[in-house]
């Protein structure tokens, strides 16, 4: 059993509390941007701002810090994005900071992306291959998945040499595993099962007196 110390070092897989908060704020943001008709722009601004925060950890720490007053944070936000982003997005970031939820921005971005994808009939898929593949193959896979799922599929590619060959596509919680590793496992199970069956049918065929 892992000790508490070992547990402390293990990376958190997923925070459902933060995910729930993200969904609440994402719903509010998308509702507002739909009213003003600039959903696409707000989504781009959200992506861009998240990217900025990930590249500037000090800015992120400042906005998340409870020791810095909201007035100071508002000033920083105005300096950073006022005039460069829409009013809806600017106000959204300020509300997030005022409520002490700046640390949920990535969860908000993820939830907003999922809600926006669902609203526009789009699905994101992750394709894993043993070696890097070209854009042509990614587009082919995206087209084929679109035919199967009946939605627009956006494919994100990643490399994992452990699969040896073939490809693994994950769409939501469904995994389509055509990797060489998976097929080798299936062959192994089938071969062992068949050997067990044959041995049980006629042990004398496999045994000889030493």
């Amino acid at each position: 059993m892992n000790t508490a110390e070992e547990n402390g070092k293990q990376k958190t897989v997923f925070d459902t509390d933060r995910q729930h908060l993200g969904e609440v704020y994402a719903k509010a943001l998308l509702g507002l941007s739909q009213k003003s008709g600039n959903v696409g722009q707000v989504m781009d601004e959200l992506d861009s701002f998240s990217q900025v925060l990930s590249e500037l950890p000090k800015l992120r720490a400042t906005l998340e810090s409870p020791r810095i007053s909201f007035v100071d944070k508002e000033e920083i936000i105005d300096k950073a994005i006022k005039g460069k982003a829409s009013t809806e997005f600017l106000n959204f970031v300020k509300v997030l900071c005022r409520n002490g939820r700046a640390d949920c921005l990535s969860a908000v971005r993820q939830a907003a992306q999922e809600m926006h994808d669902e609203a526009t009939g789009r699905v994101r898929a992750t394709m894993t291959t043993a070696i890097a593949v070209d854009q042509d193959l990614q587009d082919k896979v995206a087209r084929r998945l679109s035919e199967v799922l009946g939605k627009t599929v956006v494919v994100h590619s990643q490399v994992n040499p452990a699969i040896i060959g073939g490809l693994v596509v994950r769409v939501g919680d469904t995994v389509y595993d055509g990797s060489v590793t998976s097929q080798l496992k299936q062959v192994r199970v089938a071969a062992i099962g068949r050997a067990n069956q044959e041995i049980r049918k006629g042990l004398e065929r496999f045994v000889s007196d030493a």
Partner: protein
Amino acid sequence: MKFSADEIASVIQQEIDQYDSQIDVREVGTVLEVGDGIARVHGLTGVAAGEMVEFPGNIIGLAFNLEENSVGIIILGDYLKINEGDEVRALKSLLSVPVGDAVIGRVIDPLGNPLDGKGPINSDETRPVEVIAPGVAERRGVHEPMQTGIKAVDAMTPVGRGQRELIIGDRKTGKTAIAIDAIINQKDTGVKCFYVAVGQKDSSVAGVIGVLEEAGAMDYTTVIVSGASAPSPLQYIAPYAGTAMAEHFMWQGQHCLIVYDDLSKQAVAYRECSTVTAGCWNARPNSTTNSVAARSPHCRSSKPSKARSRPTFQPT
């Protein structure tokens, strides 16, 4: 005696030649928390209540609680081998056990895995563990005796085929002895017997099996064992598993005697499953759940332990 490697190799080669590759399509989730025989999993959006899932290491689980953002799964195996971040796959089937003649004379666990060292259970048929029992209108009245072989019982409080009988008494008064005598007395009657040991000491169960073997009763008896050291989910499903195996013969028109020893321990196991599922990650301050099993020290997650209030409004 020597195994012929060439023969085994030829069988494997034949299997590889005939192998038809197929894409493996599976629904997956990720373990968020695990402890005390329960796992909380994110994902598995299409999983149904009671559906079997598989953890790494071929450990089986059962989807118990379908919550908004996660699935509560009871682990029918060693939960200490499961870690946060492990991938869980749905098996798209309800929990089923092997049934048929292959289980007669065997000692098995509630999942149908053999415990007697006599090889695997080779059965082509399975039955779901949780089924709706026939209603009152579909049942015939009890009209045939089921002799226990104990004169006092058969004379004063006879038991019939299709009847349920409770054996109640203080500890060490002979409750199990009455049940075992009843099983032994079914020799040459065509009645198949099932002894379900729930939460018992393994040494006690071994003693019971020894008595049955000595009396020749193991020829028509199946022993389903979920001992005191077994995970509580396994203890919970043991009576259901035994019933499924017995009902296979019942629906074929044969008679079966099934002994549950004992259902009190199954109730304790079920309560433990329910309390841990509800209490491990929904602990509220000043609630009774908090005092019973608020946060188990064995619950492993990277998040620090803390009591959380159940939100009554949308958080902002």
